[in-house]
């Protein structure tokens, strides 16, 4: 029930308690895994680790999921250092090693944790579901575990995130205007439109093209379904049709605002669009830290040259995790007009000020 509530309202931050949590019966040599204090995240990590004996170190991500909090500067190495020092985890284990969630790599600088606390840190898998296999393998991620997908179950969850607040609010607005039955049909139209957006997401040309025709087509389809239901219910009047059309357009307009932010497959819509990641081969020493944190399999290690190369540039979602973690500063952003954003600026501002960075004299 709590899980359903959290899922339907997942766009809002929901803070779980921070600190160290015992899962199973951990001892002084059990692994320490880090996560953020978003309620759903903590629930899912605990579920994935059922039957294991580990310490879960819940850092303060301001009630936001690990990926979004790290990109927005709400979960950084400062929070992990704070968790190590204030949670009491130092008294629970004899070792000094922790496993970071891969998706925090945009905000959490691994090296800064090691410098401040003496704890070593390694990268875990992208998904909590892969943690047991990761542990069984002795703390190494397989390539497929580092890639982030957007499977149907996740897409339905994102649709539910929008339907949860949209449908009841719109029903309450439409009910006094059109009556309960027509308002319910409007709500069905809205729910179908949002479900279609996320259900068919992998096949929609949203990543490269402007989405307006796509959103318009989905609105028209949802309107068609709702209109058919109004006809069957004997409620097909000009007024109810107009309100249905308005409901479909408004719902799709709201749902389309943050489609990029609801998926791990698109670059954030708050970024400027005219830049890409640049690799400076002369600086690369082949530590491959970037390969371990890239969620889109953009970078690969060239074993013969002992250097990293950009293998799949079109997959890149410009999250900057690779830039933040590279110990040699061999990666940076380059704008089409030739200007560059060096790693230090990314580390200081995360992604949320990138537009400003482009014109800042401090670059």
């Amino acid at each position, binding site marked *: 029930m709590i899980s359903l509530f959290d899922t339907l309202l997942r766009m809002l931050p929901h803070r779980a308690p921070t*600190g160290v949590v015992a899962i199973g019966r951990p001892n002084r040599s059990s692994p320490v895994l880090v996560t953020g204090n978003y309620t759903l995240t903590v629930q899912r990590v605990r579920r994935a680790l059922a039957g294991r004996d580990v310490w879960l170190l819940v850092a303060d991500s301001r009630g936001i999921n690990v990926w979004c909090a790290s990109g927005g*500067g709400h979960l950084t190495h400062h929070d992990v250092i704070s968790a190590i020092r204030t949670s009491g985890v130092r008294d629970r284990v004899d070792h000094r090693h922790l496993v970071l969630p891969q998706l925090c790599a945009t905000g959490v600088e691994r090296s800064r944790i090691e410098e401040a606390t003496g704890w070593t840190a390694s990268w875990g898998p992208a998904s909590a579901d892969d943690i047991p296999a990761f542990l069984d393998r002795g703390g190494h991620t397989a390539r497929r575990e580092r890639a982030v997908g957007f499977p149907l179950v996740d897409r339905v969850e994102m649709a539910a995130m929008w339907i949860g607040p949209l449908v009841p609010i719109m029903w309450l607005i439409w009910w006094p205007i059109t009556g309960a039955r027509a308002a319910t049909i409007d709500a069905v139209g809205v729910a179908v439109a949002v479900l279609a957006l996320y259900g068919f997401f992998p096949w929609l040309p949203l990543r490269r093209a402007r989405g307006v025709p796509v959103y318009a087509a989905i609105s028209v389809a949802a309107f068609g379904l709702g209109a058919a239901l109004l006809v069957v219910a004997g409620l097909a009047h000009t007024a109810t049709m107009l309100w249905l059309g308005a409901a479909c357009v408004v719902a799709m307009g709201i749902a389309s605002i943050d489609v990029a932010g609801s998926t791990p497959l698109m670059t954030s819509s708050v970024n400027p669009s005219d830049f890409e990641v640049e690799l400076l081969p002369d600086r690369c020493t082949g530590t491959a830290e970037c390969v371990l944190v890239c969620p889109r399999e953009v970078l690969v290690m060239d074993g013969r040259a002992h250097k990293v190369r950009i293998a799949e540039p079109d997959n890149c979602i410009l999250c900057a995790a690779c830039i933040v973690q590279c110990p040699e500063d061999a990666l940076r952003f380059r704008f089409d007009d030739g200007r560059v954003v060096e790693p230090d600026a990314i580390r200081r*501002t995360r992604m949320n000020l990138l537009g400003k960075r482009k014109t800042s004299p401090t670059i």
Partner: protein
Amino acid sequence: MTYAFMRRLESTPSRYDRGIELLSGGRIGSVYDRMAELVARPGADVLDIGCGTGNVSIACAARGANVTGADRDAGMLEVAASKSTAVQWLEVDATEIEDHFGPESLDAVVSCLALSEMSPQVQRYVLSMSLSRLRPEGKLVVADEVAPEHAGQRAWYRVRRAPVAALTWVLTQTGTRPVKDLAPDIATAGFTQIETERPWPSFLIVSAVKPS
């Protein structure tokens, strides 16, 4: 003033000062001055924990103190640095202060609108660390939003806060809360001579001294 709205302000550091000024009804400037008046004297070593855009630090430096303004947010520090070069700005979390200051190395620790951003564990840690870093007779001054004392004022405060908190969640996907038990926690940490001032019902300034 509404804490939840502060998250919005923090997401745009350049707007922070104007926003806080508006939210406090123009009264926040007097808090900065009062805090500086309580701790700053020429040559005193002062640390401002969670300095944000640096107003308390700058007020202390104006009275001749050697001030370090510490904040974990580089964007905030960038605004602070643009306002004053008389303060040393340091990008660290409150729990990293121990890495930069030795025991009994400070004459005063100040913190304005920062403790309420911290979890209770971190608050306890910061108070304890402040005690260890202060010299004997060193002073701690903390100012933060609190729930008003009187039931009627508290109810009005909650009613007024709710819609802004909801709007802030929608705009920034974050929220905050007023700090609880500020003075008792400071006493528990080992400070003495605790004095409180309420410049307005939902705001508290607590000053305390490290025993010699």
